[in-house]
């Protein structure tokens, strides 16, 4: 059975909730898109692979400035280094993983967060379509990307 809309949206929702908590509810949403040809990657990406009740991936990708602002908002001083940016996006991704595990339990297997810069070292298989939710904070962009594959198609 494919996941109901509420469950699919949870991946986006939990990320937004966390970002809003970190930014003092200053996150602005842009109109989402569905992409058929390509994946969007910004400077830093935290990715989780999903298996079980849903097959695919969810990731957040953000510009260096976005993460730098986030790093400062968490109480750090100074400009965020590359390591700081990786650590920041890693924290967000781990938070998503914990909450998803809490909600879905054993029905959904979540991989360890995979953090990378610019583009993934290992290729990611493109599902039929990916859902992209752009977010803006202090004029900087981040994208929450959800790619589901076989879980939806198995209902065909």
């Amino acid at each position, binding site marked *: 059975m494919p996941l109901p809309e509420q469950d699919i949206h949870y991946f986006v929702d939990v990320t937004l909730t966390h970002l809003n908590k970190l930014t003092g509810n200053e996150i602005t949403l842009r109109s989402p898109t569905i992409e058929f*040809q390509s994946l969007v990657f910004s400077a830093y990406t935290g990715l989780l692979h999903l298996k079980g009740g849903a097959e695919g991936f969810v990731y957040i990708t953000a510009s260096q400035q976005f993460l730098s602002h986030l790093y400062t908002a968490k109480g750090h001083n100074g400009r965020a280094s590359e390591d700081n940016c990786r650590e920041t996006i890693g924290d967000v991704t781990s938070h998503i993983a914990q909450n998803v595990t809490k909600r879905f339990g054993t029905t959904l297997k979540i991989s360890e967060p995979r953090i990378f810069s610019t583009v993934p070292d290992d290729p990611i298989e493109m599902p039929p379509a990916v859902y992209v939710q752009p977010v803006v904070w202090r004029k900087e962009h981040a994208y929450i990307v959800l790619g589901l594959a076989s879980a939806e198609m198995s209902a065909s």
Partner: protein
Amino acid sequence: MTGTEIYKRTATYDAEARSIRIHAPHWKVLLAYDGQRTLSEVAVSAETPFAETVTLTQKFLDSNWIAEEPITLDQYIKRMGASDITKTGAVVAPAVVLHDPEKDKPKPVAPPAPVLPPAPVAVQPPLTPPAPVTPVTAPVPVTPPPLPTTKTTPVPVAVLPPVAPPAPTKRTMKLSAVVDYVVSLVGNVSLGQILVYRVFLRVPPELLLAEDIASVHLSGDTSIITGEKLQKAIADAVHAVVKKTLPDSVFA
């Protein structure tokens, strides 16, 4: 609500306008109801996502600030771009023009389509080979309207050379109308957009890419679908996911 409804502000609105307190951007929507524009046009005019416009419209209806403006057959036909049948005296209505490339050209006064912030990097995953592209250029056959069923007396007539049937008219599908329709089926915009995603998970990407559709904007998409195969694939996907048939209003 399908997006084709027309609303106008009411006398109640006129009486209460000065005392109304609403979220500032919502005024843009409220002031856009003019008894002429459809709900979809109001959304575009107010630069507000259709799904949000639907929610606001319901709120304004509940407050009795707007009311639906019924239109006559003539107005409807005029809006649809057909000839005025009352002037033809024809028993059988003339064929409705379903697609006129000249009319489909973007008008210079139209507001610009919403543009996503540029994605920093778009990567096509190397593992997935490009899907074969199937040309979808077959015209959509159109059945002529049925003849009247009134009884007639046969009259001998001269045999005329056979008349060529009218050229098949190609229907075009507005992607934004499909998105808005699916979103409207769910009370919550976010969940409605996920429902749209589920629909497009079932549409073969090669058909979309054959029509140069690499992405769908879930608010204000401007793509027009002419390929019969893709139209059918989308209709089938909608039916499979939401168990409903696409309304005629999604066709331009």
